[in-house]
């Protein structure tokens, strides 16, 4: 049986050559962003002595009168309308709860849901009101940093390569085989436990490696970038995709296609 082994090597700094032309305004905590008091302060800033000061290290984003600083990586902060994927760890135990929910959703189940409300202390309340959400059956979960998931109109994508993906805003990404019938979405309250074919499994494994690849090279995740990466990775074997030299090659091709598509 052949075995391949690699020794640890110093990380190469990410190349800036394929960067955008607009120079971002990068700040660190303690930096004054502006002394103009007309601006509203958003996340990552605080007001001190008539000046707007940054409280995280990242890039300044300005939308009309709102200034906020987007940190490089943060824990997920819930916003109303976000899609999240997660595992139930604890349940409220009350009589009505027992009768109603326990039949459908148990502890340890993996579910997709939408954020309904955000409390003042940061806790979020979720709902699974439409059949689009609910229990997730067979598939692969990838955990990435929430800052790499692009905000889009929809987070449920059926990719043409033969699998579907849910991009949770909290950084949990669920890859699953596309259900044949349109009515059975990945959701509802019964899990589909039919065996998944080998071809589907290969597509899902390749997609999972592609997502890990994109995340390592800090490319934003959305349906187009994942698709382009999948297509660029086809010449390579699935298990080779995580090798550094192949990663660079695939990401460079992906970036190229994404830039062409934008420009």
């Amino acid at each position, binding site marked *: 049986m052949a075995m391949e082994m690699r020794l640890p090597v110093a990380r190469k700094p*990410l190349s800036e050559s*394929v960067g955008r032309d607009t120079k971002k305004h990068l700040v660190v905590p303690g930096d004054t962003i502006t002394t103009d008091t007309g601006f509203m302060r958003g996340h990552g800033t605080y007001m001190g002595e008539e000046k707007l000061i940054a409280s*995280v*290290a990242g*890039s300044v984003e300005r939308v009309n009168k709102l200034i906020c600083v987007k940190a490089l*990586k*943060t*824990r997920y902060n819930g916003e109303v309308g976000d899609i999240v994927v997660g595992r139930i760890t604890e349940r409220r135990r009350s009589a009505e709860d027992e009768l109603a929910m326990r039949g459908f959703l148990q502890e340890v189940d993996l579910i997709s849901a939408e954020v309904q409300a955000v409390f003042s202390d940061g806790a979020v309340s979720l709902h699974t009101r439409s059949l689009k959400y609910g229990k997730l059956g067979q598939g692969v979960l990838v955990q990435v940093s929430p800052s790499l998931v*692009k905000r889009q109109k929809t987070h449920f994508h059926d990719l043409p390569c033969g699998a579907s993906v849910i991009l949770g805003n909290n950084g949990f990404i669920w890859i699953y085989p596309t259900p044949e019938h349109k009515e059975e979405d990945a959701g509802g309250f019964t899990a589909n436990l039919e065996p998944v074919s080998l071809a589907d499994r290969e597509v899902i494994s390749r997609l999972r490696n592609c997502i890990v690849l994109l995340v390592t090279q800090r490319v934003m995740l959305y349906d187009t970038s994942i698709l382009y990466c999948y297509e660029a990775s086809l010449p390579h074997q699935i298990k080779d995709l995580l090798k550094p030299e192949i990663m660079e090659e695939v990401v460079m091709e992906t970036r190229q296609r994404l830039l062409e598509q934008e420009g």
Partner: protein
Amino acid sequence: MAGLELLSDQGYRVDGRRAGELRKIQARMGVFAQADGSAYIEQGNTKALAVVYGPHEIRGSRARALPDRALVNCQYSSATFSTGERKRRPHGDRKSCEMGLQLRQTFEAAILTQLHPRSQIDIYVQVLQADGGTYAACVNAATLAVLDAGVPMRDFVCACSAGFVDSTALADLSHVEEAAGGPQLALALLPASGQIALLEMDARLHEDHLESVLEAAARAARDVHTLLDRVVRQHVREASVLLGD
């Protein structure tokens, strides 16, 4: 008796530095992928590693949760191989607890805890090699780790130690200088506003000299800030998402 001359007539210290000169500082952020934030710093031969988890839900007793702010939990540990002689240090011994408490006081002053009520922020610091100035190295490493985790802070927290020998204030003491037994002071500063997060000294120093020692420590802390600022900016620039929206 041939004593060790901490400050020569020409103004050179044992390792060849001048009185107000810092040791070489090298730092890296994001050294651990599993943690929310991590950093490694080397100040001369002192090496410290800091790891931050949070803000997350309070583990253990929910009763400890503060309704209006986050709990900052700091733990300090020193590796057995960190000093000249290999010494087993059990967790929870007095020095570790005291350091942990000091780190907690320092970071409670800097982290904007009101933004995360009912949560907990864990900061774990480990000293891998101790050659003087361990508190300062821990604070500097923890600052970088907290920044790496994206936890909002008022400002950097930069720390440095200072001593007093032959009527001259020395900045950034090494182990040899600390062991000589003179007065030593540790200062943690928020550079932009000049506010002091923590000032610690447990030796005897005449009050006339306090001003100069404090000034030396503050100047050294500002120099540390310049270096850490450069490290953070470099890291942010490199890690900025190259294809955004």
